[in-house]
Every structure is written in C-alpha cells, then in structure tokens.
C-alpha cells in the first residue's frame, strides 16, 4: 500500500477509532493518542494491511484492546478511576438529572455493562453488521444479537422511568 493509498483509505478511519476510544476512555486526549497510535500501527503493517478484508473492524478491535490496556494501567494507579468506571452499579440511579434527552440517553448507556455499551456503540454509531461487531467484541454473532437486544430493552425500560 503506497502512502497515498494509505492516506485516502486508512487515515480517515481515525474517526471511528477516535469515537470508540473516546467512549471507552471517557476522555478526549486519551482518545486522540490512542486513535493516532492505531493509525501508526496500521501504517507500520501497511504491506500486510490489504490482506485484511475489513480494516475498520480490525482497527476497532485494536482500539478496544489498547483502551482496555490503558484502563488497566490507570486503575492500577488510582482506585478512584476504577470506581467511576464501575458501570454505574454503585451509582444512585435517581441522581440523574435529565437536563436534556440526549444527555439522559448517554447517562443511561453509561450505566449498562461494558459489553452492552460496546455493542450498542458499534451498531448505533459505527453502523457495523452483526458479524463485524462479533469480530470487534470477541463474541459469536448470536451472542451479539442477544446482548444488543438486552441493551435496547434495558435502555427503554430505564428511559421510561424518567419520563
């Protein structure tokens, strides 16, 4: 893959990588670093990159792995961080202030288990097919559907509580 080809085919993928990293890390700066790192890693393997039929899914998976790695390192250094990433089990649900609907949806998603959040994001924001989500999330396609269904139902149920 030449530099020009890489520029037009791969570099634009930084956006989906960034979006996923931003969601997982909950932080713009980390998301920028991580998504850049993924592009650079793909650049280093540009000779083989065309062998992968779905580079976007492949890169999203790398992104997720790198994020989990960073989160692990961070939680080693600060207990506080872990607490805030506890998927909201300890969060008092009634404390949510529905300042606006989109914010409410965002906060409700944040309270779901990590796998449900991931699958929802990949489907809703990145518009991936079930098979692609299965690849990124390390699940079987069937399991993806189940998790997706659970997440949607749970969201609806929570949402209606606040209406």
């Amino acid at each position, binding site marked *: 893959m030449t*530099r020009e080809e*890489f*520029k037009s085919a791969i*570099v634009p993928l*930084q*956006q989906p990588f*960034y*979006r996923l990293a*931003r*969601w997982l890390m909950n932080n713009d700066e980390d*998301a*920028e670093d991580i*998504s*850049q790192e993924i*592009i*650079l890693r793909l*650049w*280093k*393997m540009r*000779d*083989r990159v065309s062998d992968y039929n779905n580079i976007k899914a492949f890169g999203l998976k790398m992104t997720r792995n790198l994020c989990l790695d960073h989160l692990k*390192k961070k939680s*080693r*250094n600060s207990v506080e961080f872990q607490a805030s990433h506890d998927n909201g089990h300890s969060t008092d649900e009634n404390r949510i202030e529905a300042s606006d*609907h*989109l914010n*409410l*949806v*965002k906060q409700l*998603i944040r309270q779901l288990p990590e796998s449900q959040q991931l699958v929802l*994001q990949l*489907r*809703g*924001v990145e*518009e991936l*097919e079930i098979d692609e989500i299965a690849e990124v999330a390390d699940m079987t396609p069937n399991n*993806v*559907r*189940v*998790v*997706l*269904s659970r997440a*949607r*139902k749970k*969201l*609806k149920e929570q*949402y*209606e509580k606040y*209406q």
Partner: protein
Amino acid sequence: MKNINKTDQKELLDKFYNGETSLDEEKLLETGDDQLSPEKDLFRFFESERKVAPPSFPLEKLEGRHSFLFAAKIAASLALLVLFGYMLFNYFSKDAEPVQWVEVNTETDQKIINLSDGSIVTLNKNGSLKYQEGFADRLVYLEGEAFFDVKRDEARPFKVLTGKATTEVLGTSFYLRWLPGSAKVELEVSEGKVAFSSHDRNLNERVFVVAGERAVYDEQSNTIRRFESFDPNLIAWKTKQLQFEDAPLKKLLEDAEGYFGVEFAFEEAVISNCRFSGTFDDPTLEQLLDALKYVFDITHEMQNSKVILKGSGC
C-alpha cells in the same frame, strides 16, 4: 418505503428490541416520522455521536520509506550481532549466568518507565536506569534523578542502588537523586516508608524515612542524615509546580534555575531581604519573572540563557 404503517412499525420495533433488525431497517426506524420517544432519542444520540471527530491526523508521522522487509533485514542483522556478542560474552565468562540488562537513558526529555511489576519510574533529564530483563528481582540502578511509584509487594522488596546507597521499599512513592561522581544521594519520601542504607554491610545502619521526610547519604562520612522536612520543589520537574512558603528569594532563584535550566545573575545585597510565598503551576520563565517584577522591585534582562536581575529589591 419511507412511510410505513402502524402495524409494520410495531413489528419493526419488536424486531428491533429482539436484536433482529438489519441496518437498513434501523435506518427506516430512524427516518420514520413517528415520534416514539425512546428510540428517537437513542437514534438522535447516535447521530450526535457520529459527528464526533478527532483533530486531523498529523500526516508527517507517516514516514519511513523502509518496507517491512527492510526492517526485517535490519532486525535479522541486529539479532546476529547480539548473538555474536552473547557468544563472545559467554566465552569470556564461562561460569557467569548470562544476564540481560535493560537500560533506559534520557538526555533532554523525561521518560516514564513502566516496569513489569506495575511500578512506574519517572526519569528526569540526563538520567539512566538499569535493570535485569524480566525484572524478577525488583532491583534497579539509578544515575540521575527519578521519582518512583512502587507497586506494593510485601514478599519482594523493591531496591534502588545509587552510588553507595541502597533504598529499599515495599510499596511507596519517593524521589531519589544521585549524580554520578557526587558524594551525596538525596531521598525524599512522599508516601509510605522507605529503608535507606549504605551498601557497606559493616555499617548496616538502616534509616527509616517516612512520608514528608528527606534524607541525605554522604559518601565521604558514610553517614545518613534524616530531616523532618520535605522540599516539594525537588520534584517540581515531575509535578510541574514550584511552591514557596516564606522562602528567601535566593532559594526561589535556585529552584527556578534547576526548573528552567537557566542561570540568574544578581547582587546578593539587592535580594538578601526578599522573601516570597506562593505557588506556580506549570509556569513559564516569563510568568515567574513577571511575578517577581510585580511583588518586588526587580526587573530582568536576558542574555542568552542567563537572566540578569536588576532593581532595588525589597
């Protein structure tokens, strides 16, 4: 297909909640003019998330014309070289266990080193940190300045060797400085407890230094002095903060010299009575000089990396 009737809509929603809709069908739900709330808000949320974009990618980072093959060739020749060196080493030290050392050096920048036991070392400029590959023994050699965040492991103490002093901990944060050639090793503990001793086993004098304390080992007298004070500015290079509490201006200038890598020229008499209290967060040299101008009657002039201070002082 844009308008779907109520029954279709209901069916589609059921499918949606069962995770069985295709992407096209989801698009249909998204664009349908029905105002059903939970899904509409969910779709609107996804749409807003889709607009999130990173700052544009720094394309200059895509360099290195060498192909993978070229890199592999280099790696192979390096491996050969290492192998040869290793054989040579073994030849001359037949009974010695082959030990691989990892050495991290810094010149103009700081480096953060993640050790495999989970400890983190921030190595300041012009420093060197050396440890055995695998880091099973939790032992490092330090030259220069570093701040240690040591992962707790009661079974395996973490040791730092500097000059002729050893620092031993279970899990704490502390700062150490030893400049090669210098007779002094300085230690400052910000968390927990540290055992500080000379390598000299006969002395076997371990001094325990706790959080908020400082200790200095002096090689000439082979003694360790402990102080119940802590100078936060010793680690200003890491915290990016300079703190002063009723400090003589001379001390402020010394700390600033270390922090900014500049040299101040002044007349002792002018500043001898000045004292300063305050904290600088990630300051620039300009900001610090402005503060001095504001508080005291001191102006400055730059001459290369030298800052000449003038005025009537206090």
